[in-house]
């Protein structure tokens, strides 16, 4: 009986964001994100052209070509198909963002837990460092780190983690501090539970939803920062596709009235960020969690 209930509870837990308050937002965000995930996974089947394939005759390749039936989003200069590059580009973006969010979570959450629970000198030193980094413009830091490491998706992910570790750390530490003072943690102590049980069994589960919300926030932010890095050429080397870089490369087009080469890559960035933001928002509403941003 108990086992069954447990399974049911886990399933219910997974379905929870799709129910209750905020479900509309969450579901919308989820769909958007899934569209891009599918795009990334099945890129070779979805994209009509390769990312660096000249998709128009040579004489048309020197100029960006406006959207048409064969090229619903038009082409870039050199004849690359905009839609195809967006599809291929989703791979880089999702890879960088997922890796960075996971990295910063893996580092930030345990640090925040321990720091918040035990306090002391380590906590003070760590908070000070994290707060300083947090108070600093993330993209600037990411640019600095990424230009040290050189342009590559993994390096971009590492640079982004440097920015988002403090975000996870602060949120988890704050929550832990709060929960540590809560009655049920005192109750756990009164029951003679060792720290390990309290930390993992009582504090962590209550920090977890917040962590997920922060994950949504950080992912949103990371997409924009990733785009910023790409914009400055710090994620991949052209002609590898990445939305931010494509946008940057095409910016000179706008003065000639060419809009599609900037519009669609930018739209992709914003949509994907929006997807994560909506998920985070729906989730935070579901669990009534307030965030700083």
């Amino acid at each position, binding site marked *: 009986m108990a086992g069954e209930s447990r399974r049911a509870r886990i399933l219910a837990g997974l379905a929870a964001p799709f129910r209750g308050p905020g479900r509309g*937002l969450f579901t919308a965000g989820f769909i958007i994100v899934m569209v891009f995930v599918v795009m990334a996974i099945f890129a070779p089947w979805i994209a009509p052209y390769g990312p660096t394939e000249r998709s128009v005759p040579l004489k048309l390749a020197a100029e960006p070509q406006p959207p048409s039936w064969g090229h619903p989003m038009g082409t870039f200069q050199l004849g690359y198909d905009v839609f195809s590059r967006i599809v291929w580009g989703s791979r880089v973006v999702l890879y960088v963002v997922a890796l960075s969010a996971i990295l910063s979570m893996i580092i930030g959450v345990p640090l925040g837990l321990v720091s918040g629970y035990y306090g002391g000198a380590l906590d003070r030193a760590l908070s000070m460092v994290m707060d300083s980094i947090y*108070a600093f*413009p993330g993209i600037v830091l990411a640019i600095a780190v990424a230009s*040290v490491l050189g342009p590559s998706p993994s390096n971009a992910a590492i640079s982004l983690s440097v920015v988002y570790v403090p975000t996870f750390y602060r949120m988890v530490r704050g929550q832990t501090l709060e929960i540590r003072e809560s009655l049920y943690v005192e109750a756990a102590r009164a029951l003679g539970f060792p720290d390990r049980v309290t930390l993992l069994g009582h504090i962590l589960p209550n920090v977890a939803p917040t962590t997920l919300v922060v994950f949504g926030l950080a992912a949103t932010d990371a997409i924009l920062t990733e785009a910023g890095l790409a914009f*400055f050429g710090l994620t991949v080397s052209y002609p590898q596709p990445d939305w931010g870089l494509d946008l940057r490369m095409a910016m000179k087009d706008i003065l000639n009235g060419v809009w599609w080469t900037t519009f669609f*890559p930018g*739209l992709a960035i914003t949509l994907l960020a929006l997807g994560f*933001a909506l998920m985070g928002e729906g989730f935070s509403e579901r669990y009534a969690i307030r965030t*700083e941003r």
Partner: protein
Amino acid sequence: MAGLARYIAIRALLIIPTILILYTVVFIILRVIPGNPVEAVLGTHYVPPEVIKEEMHRLGLDKPLYVQYFDYLWRVLHGDFGESMVVRGRPIAADLKYRIPATIELITAGFLVSVLLGIGTGTLAAVKRGSRLDYAMRIYGIATYTLFIPWVGTLLILLFSVHLHWLPAGGRLSASVSLHRITGIYTLDALITGNWAAFADALKHLVLPAFTLGLVLSGPYTRLVRTNLSDVLQSDFIRMYRSRGLPEGKVLRYALRNALIPVVTYMGLQIAILMGGAVLTETTFSWPGLGSYLYQRISMRDYMAIQGTIVVFAFIVGIVSLLVDITYALIDPRIRY
């Protein structure tokens, strides 16, 4: 008031470790960067190796790292940000002095736009809580935050500069306009000197970047004002006001006053995001500020310039959070310092 003075003094002291930490982080990052700044400057020109060596020596780059660390720290404490490595003999302080006002002008304008937009939309949402308008404002709050600044920037340029020819696509001032530089904040300088043509021109240049930055950063304010204000509007003292026959307008005013207090705290956090956004905005709109300077100098490995800029960034962060704290202490009578 002595309490307040003490409070300010202590807060000001607290900026120091923040700056030190950032300086240290940046110092470490920069020193592991591969690439020799001297070679970078000389580029593809042929230069004998001993010249490079000599130049490294002159710049003190051959000293042990810890010596460089403290050397620089010592100099910064004396207001000396060192000399550029790219432009030999050029004091970084001069570059910074030129660029700081541009960034301040941009982020101040962006800040004002974001706060006004945010308070407006947030108030609308809170007052019409649960309505379609509220929903729209919520989406606004989420969606604006997810806008990619260069994208918004290019779209605005496309519309207002390329198609309509209403506003310039970049820069701070038209060449045809002359302006006596006092503070370096052009709109302000124009006002001080009563130069209306320059004021209009500077403002025209400022509109698009400031709006881009402000729009993107207004979302969090919308959300913050919305939640705070609807909390406050549900609080007991609002009911108290209503039960005494106060008209809704007045009630809303008192409610806003309470709801905006936490918003002030957020303004401190906002500064980092604002400056981050400024880097992208400056690049998009060719705005000659600290952000674009930093990006340029990072690619040139101009250590001194990067260090200097970061220290200035840290200072701005520190000073703004100090200002926010003081504002907070002044507007919330509950704060005891």
